[in-house]
C-alpha cells in the first residue's frame, strides 16, 4: 500500500433527500494499493456514497477528487478510472460470459483486438473458461458474482468499487471471491468495498471506516480500531438452562459489564482481568448451572458494536433478509 498516492479523496460529502440526510459531511481518502472497507448497518449511507463516487448520484455538497483532480461536478470524466461491481450481478442474461466481458470492455472504448484477449485472460483467471460460452442466465450465483467482478476490472481501472461482494452466495463461492479480491489487490488494484460481514472486513481490509446514520464515526487500520477493545477481558458463560441476567452481578463485580447473548448465554466484560472462579461460584449460588466458560478474544465486532450500538448479527440478518 502506498500512502503517498491518494486515489480518491472525499471531503465534506453530503447527500440530502428532501429532509433526510443520507450522507452527512463525510471525509476520507483511499490510498493506492489498499483495500478500504466501508462498514455500516443498513441505511447507513454506504451505497449512496458509492453511487456519488461513481456517478449514479449527485452530491448535495462536498468534493470528490480522483488522483488529485476534482471531479465533483463531472464524475463522467472520471469513469474510465473506475471499476464498479454492484451488490447484485447485473450483466446481460442472454449474452454468454465471453460476450458479457467483451461488451463491458467495449463500453470503455476498448477495441476488439484488446478486449477479446483480455476477456479470455479474465475468464481463465477467474476459473470461468469452461463457462465462457454459456449464457449468463445459466450461471450459478457464485459464478455470476465472479463474472461481475471480472467485468468490473476488464478495463484495468485505478480503483475497483465492490458493493457487498459476497452477500447472497454460498460459502465456497464467497471464499473464492475473497481470494480473488486479495489476488487483485496483490496485483496492484486499489479496492473500495462495502460489506456487512465484519469478519470479512477484518480479514481483507487494510483500513476500515465505520459509517452510521450517514456519518463516519471511525476510520483506521484493523490494529488501530482494535486498540479500543484490546484492553478488554471477556468471559462467555453457557448455562444448562435458560437464564436471566442476575440483577446484582454488576454490584458484586464492580467494573464488569454483563450482557445476555441468548437465553442460556451471558457475556461478562471488563477492562480488568476477570475472576473466573468467583464468577462461577456466583452463578452456581443462584442455581445457574454453568456448562462452559470461555475466554473470548476481543474482535473487530466488539469495536463495531461498541461504536455503533448495532449488533453485528442483526445487521447480517437484515441484509440477507433484504437480498431474499
Amino acid at each position, binding site marked *: 500500500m502506498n500512502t503517498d498516492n491518494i486515489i480518491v479523496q472525499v471531503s465534506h460529502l453530503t447527500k440530502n433527500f428532501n429532509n433526510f440526510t443520507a450522507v452527512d459531511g463525510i471525509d476520507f481518502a483511499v490510498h493506492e494499493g489498499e483495500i478500504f472497507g466501508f462498514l455500516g448497518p443498513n441505511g447507513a449511507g454506504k451505497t449512496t456514497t458509492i453511487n456519488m463516487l461513481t456517478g449514479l448520484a449527485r452530491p448535495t455538497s462536498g468534493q470528490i477528487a480522483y488522483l488529485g483532480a476534482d471531479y465533483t461536478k463531472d464524475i463522467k470524466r472520471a469513469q474510465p478510472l473506475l471499476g464498479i461491481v454492484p451488490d447484485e450481478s447485473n*450483466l446481460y442474461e442472454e449474452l454468454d460470459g465471453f460476450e458479457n466481458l467483451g461488451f463491458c470492455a467495449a*463500453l*470503455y472504448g476498448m477495441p476488439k483486438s484488446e478486449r477479446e484477449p483480455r476477456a479470455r485472460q479474465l475468464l481463465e483467471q477467474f476459473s470461468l473458461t469452461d463457462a465462457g460460452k454459456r449464457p449468463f442466465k445459466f450461471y450459478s450465483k457464485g459464478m455470476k458474482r465472479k463474472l461481475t467482478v471480472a467485468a468490473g476490472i476488464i478495463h484495468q481501472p485505478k480503483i475497483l468499487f465492490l458493493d457487498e461482494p459476497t452477500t447472497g452466495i454460498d460459502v465456497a463461492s464467497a471464499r473464492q471471491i475473497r481470494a480473488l479480491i486479495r489476488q487483485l489487490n496483490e496485483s496492484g488494484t486499489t479496492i473500495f468495498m462495502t460489506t456487512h460481514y465484519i469478519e470479512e472486513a477484518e480479514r481483507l481490509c487494510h483500513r476500515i471506516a465505520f459509517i452510521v446514520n450517514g456519518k463516519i464515526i471511525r476510520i483506521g487500520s484493523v490494529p488501530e480500531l482494535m486498540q479500543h477493545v484490546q484492553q478488554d477481558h471477556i468471559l462467555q458463560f453457557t448455562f444448562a438452562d435458560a437464564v436471566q441476567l442476575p440483577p446484582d452481578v454488576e454490584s458484586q463485580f464492580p467494573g464488569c459489564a454483563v450482557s445476555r447473548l441468548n437465553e442460556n448465554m451471558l457475556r461478562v466484560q471488563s477492562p480488568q482481568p476477570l475472576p473466573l472462579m468467583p464468577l462461577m461460584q456466583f452463578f452456581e449460588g443462584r442455581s445457574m448451572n454453568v456448562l462452559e466458560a470461555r475466554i473470548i478474544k476481543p474482535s473487530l465486532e466488539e469495536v463495531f458494536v461498541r461504536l455503533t450500538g448495532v449488533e453485528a448479527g442483526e445487521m447480517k440478518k437484515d441484509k440477507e433478509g433484504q437480498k431474499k
Partner: protein
Amino acid sequence: MKTGIAFWNILRKDMRNYYLKPPNISWGIIFPFAWMLMFFIKSGTAMGVRDILPGVMAMSILFGTTSMLAVTITFERRNRSFDRLLLAPISLTHLMLAKTLGAILFGIVNAFVPMLVSLFIIDLAGVNWLTVLGAVILIAVTSTFLGLFIAVSVSEVFEAQTFSNFFRFPMVFLCGLFIPISQLPIFLCPLSYIFPLTYGVDILKAAINQQGFMIASISFPLLLVFSVALFMISKHNIQRRWIY
C-alpha cells in the same frame, strides 16, 4: 473513437438481444400484414389498400417502436443492467442515441412491410419515394423518442405498456390514420395537432395518395421539433430520476 466503439456495441447488443429475436421479427411482419388484410377484406377491392397504406405504415412504426423501448430501457433499468451503461464513460446523449437507434431502424423496417405487401396487390405508380422515405424516418425517430419519454417516466415494463396505450390509441383515431381529421368532431380537431403522428401521416398521404392537406415543408420541421423536444425531455428525466 472510444465513444464510437461503445455506441456501436450498445446498438449491436440491442439488435441481437431484442430486435432480431424471432418473436419481434414475426410481430414486425404479422402486425402490418394483419391490418392490410383486414382492410382488404373489408373493402372487398384492392382500391382501398392504397388509401389505408399511409395509416398502416404509421401505425406499424408507432406500435413497433414504442413497444420495444419499454423492453430495451424499462426492463434493463428494472434489472439494473442499465446502471452499467450509466456508469460507462459515454455521454448520456450518445448513450440514449445508441439505445434508441435500434428502435428507429426497427420502426423503419416495420413501415416497409405493408409497403412490400402492397406491391403484390396494387400498382404503386406515382408514389414520391423520397418523401415516403423521409417521412418514415422522421415518424420512426419521433415515435421512438415518444417511446423513450414513456420508458423513462415509469419504473415497470407493464407501466410502460399501459402508459404507451394512453398515447397510442388516441393517436390511432385522432391523427388521421384511418379517419380524416376533417371528419372528426370539431372539438377533437385541436387535439390532432398536438400529436406528431398527424404531421407524419399527412406527409405519407401526400406522397402516396396526393391527399395531404398540410404543407410538407412545415410538417417535416415540425416533426423534427417534436423529436428534439421529446429527446431533451427524456434526457432531462433520466438525469433527474435515475442519476438522483
